[in-house]
């Protein structure tokens, strides 16, 4: 207000368009994915085939699916560690019900509903009781897995109807794209719109950056989080049915440890674990990057331990690299000055 008579004008953006697009984490991950694909196709025997793509998509479908709602949960600053247990629980439910004579469609429906209930229970404890989600879902991780193992005991249910199994593993005729990826695509568009182009999504980001400021802006923080936990449970249960049909086996220990794979991929995709930052396309690229890398490394006869080392290192490198580049840039800019900037 140096001069009351000047009418201020505002630029929409402080940075030119190319910088805003090219210098993002998401672009980096997508570029890395493209690079891994190109290098693998050129140097790994048998990689450049449709079959690779088909297997890659089938293998990563469950993670891709769960990553969608998980991204939103993490953007609100929460976390859901129970997803893999919900996968196991829904797998067992489908198995037990189908074995008990319930028609497959109904069994699947009930399992998905159970997933929604499991998610709602997480959400209830987090939003209504007010407990930290990390602690809650460590508990339900054990609880849901325990229910799954308890329900089915030593047995596994196997003979699912062929039609259903084919739907889970089949591809669009003439392409290597599995049907489940079509479902994923539809969901991805829906979740992408929800997160990035709706008032609800704006609320999700605001909550992640500041719960209280969001609440003071009339955003229903509790309800938003509850909805997201229910969505996560539902989608995880759906992924559980896919998992069961893909491998034709309903077992209590299905997908053990998948939660860490999902979270690793989401974080690799540029979502901040503190909430408030991230984009869905980055996450999808993150999942595919890990999947492609392991598929290429397997084809190159690299053993699973090395694949784990690479996955872990990649995750660390991806989150550390921005700090390192910033640090290097600062050093560069301040050469000759004794003190470095300590501003976070």
């Amino acid at each position, binding site marked *: 207000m140096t001069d009351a008579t000047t009418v201020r004008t505002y630029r929409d953006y402080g940075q030119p368009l190319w910088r805003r697009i090219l210098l993002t984490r998401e672009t980096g991950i997508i570029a890395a994915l493209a690079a891994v694909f190109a290098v693998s196709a050129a140097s790994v025997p048998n990689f450049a085939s449709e079959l690779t793509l088909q297997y890659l998509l089938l293998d990563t479908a469950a993670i891709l699916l769960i990553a969608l709602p998980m991204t939103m949960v993490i953007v609100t600053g929460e976390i859901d*560690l129970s997803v893999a247990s919900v996968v196991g629980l829904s797998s067992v439910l489908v198995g037990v019900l189908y074995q008990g004579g319930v028609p497959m469609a109904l069994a699947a429906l009930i399992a998905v509903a159970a997933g929604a209930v499991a998610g709602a229970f997480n959400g209830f*404890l987090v939003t209504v*009781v*007010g*407990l*930290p989600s*990390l*602690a*809650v879902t*460590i*508990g*339900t*991780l*054990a*609880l*849901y*897995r*325990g*229910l799954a*193992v*308890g329900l089915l*005991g030593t047995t596994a249910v196997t003979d699912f109807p062929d039609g259903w199994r084919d739907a889970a593993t089949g591809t669009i005729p003439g392409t290597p794209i599995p049907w489940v990826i079509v479902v994923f695509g539809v969901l991805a568009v829906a979740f992408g719109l929800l997160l990035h182009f709706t008032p609800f999504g704006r609320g999700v980001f605001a909550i992640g950056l500041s719960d209280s400021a969001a609440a003071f802006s009339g955003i229903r923080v509790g309800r938003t989080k509850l909805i997201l936990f229910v969505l996560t449970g539902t989608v995880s249960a759906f992924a559980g049915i896919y998992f069961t049909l893909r491998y034709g086996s309903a077992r*209590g220990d299905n997908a053990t440890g998948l939660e*860490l794979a999902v*979270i*690793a991929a989401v*974080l690799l995709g540029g979502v*901040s*674990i*503190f909430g408030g930052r991230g984009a869905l396309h980055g996450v999808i690229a993150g999942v595919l990057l890990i999947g492609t890398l392991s598929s290429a490394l397997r084809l190159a006869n690299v*053993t*699973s*331990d*090395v*694949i*784990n*080392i*690479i*996955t*872990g*290192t*990649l*995750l*660390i490198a991806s*989150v*550390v690299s921005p*700090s*390192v580049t910033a640090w290097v840039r600062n050093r560069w800019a301040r050469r000759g000055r004794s003190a470095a900037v300590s501003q*976070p």
Partner: protein
Amino acid sequence: MSARTWNASQTMLSRLGSFARIREVGILAAFVLVVAVTTAKNPNFLFSPDGFRDLLLTPSILMLVAVGQAVVIITRNVDLSVGSVLGLSAYLTGRIFVDFPSLPWPLVFVIGIAFGACLGLVNGALVAFAKVPSLVITLGTLYAYRGINVWWTGSDRINASDMPDGFLALGTDSVANIPVLTLIALLVLGCAAWYMHTQRGGRELYAIGSDPDAARLYGLRVTRRVLVAFVVSGALAGLAGVLYAARYGTVNSQVGSGFELEAVGAAVIGGVAIFGGSGSVFGAAIGAYLLMTINRALPVLGVDDFWQRAVVGALILGAIVLDRIAAARQVKRFARMREASHD
């Protein structure tokens, strides 16, 4: 000063506050209850020599890791790599015995702890210097350390016969009816509790977890302290690895996998706030005892093997919900006291 006349009630408030600080008592009571009920069902659980020994012995290793974990969580961080660190150092321990049989075994302890500390240092350096959330970093090192372990170990397995008897005896021997392993764990717990409670450095860890930005503004050496917290967690996981080798006698590439969730679970059950700043290593230790003892009590109580995980999950939830209810009660009581002071 008119608005400041609630002096008397404030003293009461603070007394209530210190009651909250002994929240660990509640968990301890739960532990005693579990032991009592199980012993009532089967006296051997406590009153047979083996039963008594196992009661003390089984949770000791988890307790060490949980204490380290609590130190890290108090600084508003988390160390998910503890299971992998434990596994690596357990294998290293075995490897040393195989490759350098002449090395005196007490030296192996030092090597194991130092090795764990180094792995913790890697975590801490990445978290503190690169300013990246610890959950992400240690999730990464969880994979990476485990990968290194599998890659190094391969199908190898260290057997009891590869290790000296004196060392193995540590895993099972007792002094005055208390297992050596438990004594070591209690010693570590005592040191940690003493440091966290009475030393400036310990209080600074609480301050950092309570508000990291304020700590930085205040001039606390946040980077160094966080680094130290991770080193401690790593060192304790390393020590736990050495003790694992002594107790279980066989070490393969999968030792300690999944331990991270148990360690975090124990700390949380023990009342360590997941967002830092409050809780105690003592609570985490009791949490570890409660968790492991429940695991052992369930079969005795006749709970089918398959349902045990479910029961453990329900108990974790029960613990944190109860904790929450107690806190809410206390807030209510504060409010009622303030109301009373108004009139």
